[in-house]
């Protein structure tokens, strides 16, 4: 497969150019008078309606990595991969409880990042710093994985792989990276919001065609499920255990139901703590937009369920299985190989473009979210408290480049299994922000030092537990689950439980000791507020004369 298919390649290049154009044109879309404000660059003017928000959040949450990794997990281990489906179902009923409150209070106080809220609520710079640090740490490998997703597609296309030189091999990835970096720098959040339309059109097309067409070539769904069931029941000679499970079992072998459930619940709790999800949320213009999106985003999960089934299709296709074996058993290549074998080359081009563009959208939003965290909660908080909004925007732009460079380093230099495990670890990490953020939206009961200690304990436990998880093929970072009290449980779930228990105990002690509480700048009514106008910039300088046009 080292030769490049000209038709596929041409279509991918053309669609990539189209998206590049859209990315740059986005700078002019809904243009504000004063672009040099973080509300504009970092949150697209905080004016997106329900329709745009649906695409933006959809493009944000369902990443290229999802299209590659979820079917890869299903291909490799079976039913446990469907935890992703279960989690994208339960995330919305969970999130509808607290996300509208975060939107309201952030709107009133002009908070741009989740750490801004934590700073305002608890009056604690340290706690805000811990949230910002965790956010950036967890986003880095996540962005890297988007680039890994692009690499998987490029590998199957045969682009660059024939060359021995690392530089030439990674050149297409560098080009994609540079384009991504430049249009994010120029257009901010408007670029991914607009590109998300193109991405979703391509992805929906790809999935619908694949779901109806591929089974007809593989002998129907009955055959696909049959092959998968037989495969996962057979014994893997390397581990002396079954390859995986076809449905979650209560037995101690393979994936258990508890593992499935805690993985799904933990991931669901983590999803909207990720800074990029919050960026997408805060960019919408009304509280009702958020609520309605929580009801309509599950429709995206239907897509994810179908994408997960691609993993079984790949098992049922002998050519794909053989190709993956030839590529060193890299199951990340399951979907690209399946498409390449099943589709005519022109449609393969469309499908591959969908995956590549599907990587650019979330990577852009993630780098913006990480950059905002750095600017607001590290740079402005600790180095330049009097930073003007224009300076903030400039710093954020550069920070987004640095973040992406870091991610590129991850993607190119580190072994891919390492990046994937870091992403699993990212979920464990970001979950440790959950108590301070979500509890803070409802109550000021928790003490800031108790929350900080709980966070630290959760971070340390999660990291150590993930490091120590071993498998027959890897001595460290092998899995995101480990065994607690005789059950296989998601590490993030255990870690956040430890986090909360410590925070509760310490809060009781610190309250009894009458330790002073930080100042809370929020008011109860602000958590249900629904201001129609974007907030007035906090530190209004000379450059804000223009902003007054938006103030009532």
């Amino acid at each position: 497969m080292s030769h490049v298919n000209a038709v596929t390649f041409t279509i991918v290049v053309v669609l990539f150019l189209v998206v590049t154009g859209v990315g740059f044109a986005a700078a002019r879309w809904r243009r504000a008078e004063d672009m040099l404000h973080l509300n504009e660059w970092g949150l697209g003017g905080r004016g997106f309606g329900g329709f745009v928000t649906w695409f933006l959040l959809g493009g944000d949450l369902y990443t290229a990595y999802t299209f590659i990794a979820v079917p890869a997990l299903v291909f490799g281990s079976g039913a446990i991969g469907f935890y992703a489906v279960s989690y994208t179902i339960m995330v919305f009923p969970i999130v509808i409880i607290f996300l509208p409150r975060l939107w309201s209070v952030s709107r009133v106080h002009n908070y741009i990042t989740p750490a801004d809220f934590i700073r305002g609520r608890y009056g604690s710079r340290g706690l805000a710093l811990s949230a910002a640090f965790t956010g950036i740490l967890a986003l880095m490998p996540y962005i890297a994985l988007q680039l890994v997703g692009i690499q998987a597609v490029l590998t199957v296309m045969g682009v660059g792989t024939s060359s021995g030189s690392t530089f030439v091999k990674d050149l297409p990835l560098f080009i994609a990276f540079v384009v991504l970096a430049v249009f994010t720098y120029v257009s901010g959040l408007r670029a991914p919001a607009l590109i998300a339309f193109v991405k979703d059109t391509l992805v929906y097309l790809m999935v619908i065609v694949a779901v109806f067409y591929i089974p007809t070539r593989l002998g129907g769904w009955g055959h696909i499920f049959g092959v998968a069931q037989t495969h996962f029941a057979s014994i893997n000679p390397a581990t002396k255990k079954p390859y995986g499970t076809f449905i979650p079992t209560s037995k101690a072998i393979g994936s258990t139901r508890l593992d499935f459930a805690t993985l799904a619940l933990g991931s669901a709790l983590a999803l909207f703590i990720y800074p990029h999800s919050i960026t997408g949320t805060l960019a919408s213009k009304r509280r009702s937009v958020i609520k309605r999106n929580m009801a309509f985003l599950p429709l995206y999960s239907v897509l994810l369920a179908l994408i997960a089934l691609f993993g079984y299709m790949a098992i049922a296709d002998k050519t794909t299985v053989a190709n993956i074996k030839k590529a060193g058993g890299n199951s990340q290549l399951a979907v690209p190989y399946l498409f390449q074998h099943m589709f005519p080359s022109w449609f393969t081009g469309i499908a591959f473009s969908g995956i590549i563009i599907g990587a650019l959208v979330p990577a852009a939003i993630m780098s913006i979210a990480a950059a905002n965290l750095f600017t607001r909660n590290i740079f402005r908080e600790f180095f330049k408290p009097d930073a003007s909004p224009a300076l903030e925007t400039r710093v954020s732009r550069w920070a987004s480049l640095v973040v992406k460079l870091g991610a590129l380093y991850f993607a190119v230099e580190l072994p891919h299994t390492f990046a994937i495990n870091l992403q699993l670890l990212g979920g464990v990490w970001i979950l440790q922000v959950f108590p301070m953020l979500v509890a803070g939206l409802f109550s000021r009961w928790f003490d800031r030092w108790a929350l900080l200690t709980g966070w630290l304990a959760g971070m340390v436990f999660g990291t150590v537990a993930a490091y120590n998880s071993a498998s027959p093929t890897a001595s460290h970072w092998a899995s995101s689950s480990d065994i607690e009290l005789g059950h296989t449980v998601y590490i993030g779930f255990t870690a956040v439980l430890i986090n909360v228990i410590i925070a509760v105990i310490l809060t009781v002690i610190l309250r009894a000791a009458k330790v002073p509480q930080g100042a809370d700048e929020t008011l109860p009514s602000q958590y249900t507020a629904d201001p129609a106008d974007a907030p007035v910039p906090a530190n209004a300088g000379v450059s804000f004369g223009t902003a007054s046009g938006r103030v009532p």
Partner: protein
Amino acid sequence: MSQPPDRSRDRSADRPGSSGQAEARWAPIAAHPVTSAVIAVLIIASIFFSLYVPIYSRITPKIGDFPFFYFYLLVYMPAVSVALLIVIALQKRLRPPAGAGPAGAGPDVSEVTE
């Protein structure tokens, strides 16, 4: 703080830590106990029926060629969508019709035109 909070309405509700805070938060729920209960049940049920795996981790009955586990997950998503739409509609009832939020009094035009 960027925007002066609207102090014209119930002041006791805006003072953190006062008993008015708790009253203000629970007042709409106390006024509509049935609606609130339905909302709670819908949300808890939506979470429970995907969280409690033993309900659906079965191969049979097969629906068409789909084992029950996979069919259930596929069908569950539109069901959650509908449940959440009902929740949103019910939540509107919990609120006094006009001038409830600090955004200002009167019906909100953008809410309708969206």
